[in-house]
Each structure stands twice: as structure tokens, then as C-alpha cells.
């Protein structure tokens, strides 16, 4: 773990420094976490709520952080779990099937006031939304975020091999989606 992160974690665990350290943490990681969450849940308002939940969880649980991963990995993991839990709740509340979640996300995407992409970006996003949730997360992290497989494996607690397979299948499905469109 880099020294900057170690210092930040130490400051977060000391009551008198916690407020300032937390402010620094938020400023440092908010954008990257936001875009990760946003790509999963699509809606800006939902992403905003979830990101607040993530940081509040970090505030409450920083004392339990064992530092066996990097700070960013830990944050990313919390953000991923919060986002997946959110979609699970949507499924339960609205009695959505797996396909239902996909339809819900497509509907959310098409009515999203905060999308300013071109037609190609829109078509790619619609193709990505057809993927199963976890495969979609893998695709987002690899394609849009350009994360290394090893880093993704730490966040998602999955093997590198499984991630490569998941990404390969995601690409194939997107390719087929585009070809089917035309």
C-alpha cells in the first residue's frame, strides 16, 4: 500500500483527525467511485444516493479495515456491493426477474436526463445493459476503466481466469448485439 494511503488510513482511525482525513478521502476518491456506481445503476440520482451510503459506511467501518488490500480496492468493493444490493432490492420490491432488471435499467437509461453521448455511445450502452449484472460490471471495469485483471480480481474476489472468461463472453455478446441490430 502506498504511503499516502497508509497516512490517510491512520488519520481516519484517530478521532481528532478523522473529520479532516475523511474530507480528503472524499475529495480524492469521489469521482472514480461515482462513475463506477453510475455505470452499474445508470441513474444519476441513484448513484448519488449510493455514493453517500458508501462513504457513510466507510466512516462507520474504517476502524475495521484490516489493510489487507489497498484503500481504493476496499472502497471499490464497498461501492460494488452497495450497487448490487440496490439492484437486488429493486428486484425484490418490483418482483423483477433477471431480464426485468435489464429492462428496468434500459428504461432508466432511456429516460436519463444526464446522458449526453452520441448514437454510437448509446448503442454500446444499450448492448452492455443486456449483459448479466456481474458480467456487466466486469466489462465496465475492463473496457471503460481499463483496470488490470489482478486489480479487478481483488475488488470482485474472483480469479483472474474467471474474469478473463467473463470479459471474453461479454465482448462476444456485445458484438452479436451490434450485428443483430443491423
Amino acid at each position, binding site marked *: 500500500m502506498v504511503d499516502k494511503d497508509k497516512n490517510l488510513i491512520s488519520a481516519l482511525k484517530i*478521532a481528532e483527525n478523522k*473529520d479532516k482525513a475523511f474530507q480528503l478521502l472524499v475529495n480524492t476518491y469521489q469521482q472514480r467511485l461515482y462513475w463506477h456506481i453510475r455505470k452499474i445503476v445508470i441513474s444519476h440520482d441513484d448513484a448519488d444516493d449510493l455514493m453517500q451510503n458508501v462513504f457513510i459506511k466507510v466512516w*462507520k467501518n474504517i476502524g475495521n479495515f484490516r489493510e489487507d488490500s489497498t484503500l481504493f480496492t476496499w472502497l471499490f468493493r464497498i461501492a460494488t456491493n452497495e450497487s448490487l444490493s440496490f439492484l437486488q432490492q429493486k428486484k425484490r420490491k418490483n418482483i423483477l426477474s433477471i431480464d426485468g432488471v435489464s429492462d428496468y435499467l434500459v428504461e432508466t437509461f432511456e429516460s*436519463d436526463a444526464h446522458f449526453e453521448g*452520441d448514437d*454510437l455511445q448509446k448503442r454500446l450502452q444499450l448492448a452492455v445493459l443486456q449483459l448479466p449484472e456481474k458480467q456487466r460490471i466486469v466489462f465496465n471495469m475492463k473496457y471503460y476503466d481499463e483496470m488490470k485483471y489482478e486489480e479487478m480480481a481483488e475488488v470482485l474476489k474472483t480469479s483472474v481466469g474467471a474474469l478473463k472468461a467473463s470479459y471474453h463472453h461479454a465482448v462476444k455478446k456485445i458484438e452479436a448485439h*451490434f450485428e443483430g441490430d443491423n
Partner: protein
Amino acid sequence: MDALVRIFLKLFVMKQKNEHFEELPGFPKMETGFDVPEGYFDSFGERLRLRMEAENLSSRRKKIIFYLKPALGIAAGLAIMLTVYIYPPGNQRTSTLASVNNVAIGSDDQSELLTSTYASLITDGQFISALSEMDEYDASKMPKEDLADYLASNCSDFEILNANK
């Protein structure tokens, strides 16, 4: 399939198969197209802070409350004891309090003596010095959920604000 989509798809698939593939000049990496309201990230920290204060999660607020907790506990205990003495259940005064202070039951000065006795246990000066001399509480030793529950059921904003003057 239109030309742009064909080019994109070809590049897309080629890139995914070869991690060292260099993008063609002039062909931008595909971004998501998502956007945020203006100033969103600038104001996020402040909105988060307000929400955490509303949920009693600020560490400064917790610190104040922890300094006051023992003192408020003493004050509450005294208030209960005095109330029980002044308004005893079944009109029976307990002898325990009086006997501890060697005051004969039935004495005309009993209530006054007891009041002054307990008042002497914690004067204003002692209350204030107890606060200032108290060691800083290490919040990490107490589960935060327990703290939040205690605060919600035992301390009001009015008590905290007035005790801290």
C-alpha cells in the same frame, strides 16, 4: 450495418483481443456518454457532511456528547434520588438516604440538609472542572452503533447545547 458502427466494432473486437493494440489516430476511446449536473462534485462533500450531521455521525458532536455523558449521568442520578425523596412512593420516606448522612428521621431540617448534602457532592465548579480534566475519550473503543443508540435515547440537543455553555 453503417460504416461508423462497422469501424467501431472492428476496433472494439480487435482491442479486446489484443491488450497492446494502439488506437487509430483520430478515433477516440469510447466513453460512456454519462454526464453529471454542473458543480455536482464540488458540492458533494458538503451535502454528505450535512447528511452525516443529520444522522448524528459527526465525530465532533460525538466527542462533545462523550465528555458530557458521565456528568449528565451523575446529574440524572441525583435528580432521580431527590425526586424519590421528595415524592416517595406510598408517602414513605426512605431511611437509607438519611441514615447515610446521619440525619435523624423526622428532623425539621432533614430535607434541607439532604438537599445541601447532595448539592455539595457536585458543585458548578466541580462539574466544569470534571469536564475540562476529563481525558479525551477514545471513540474507537466503543462500538459506534451502541453510541448512536445511547445518544438517541438519552441525550437531547437542548441538554447538550446548554451544558456546553
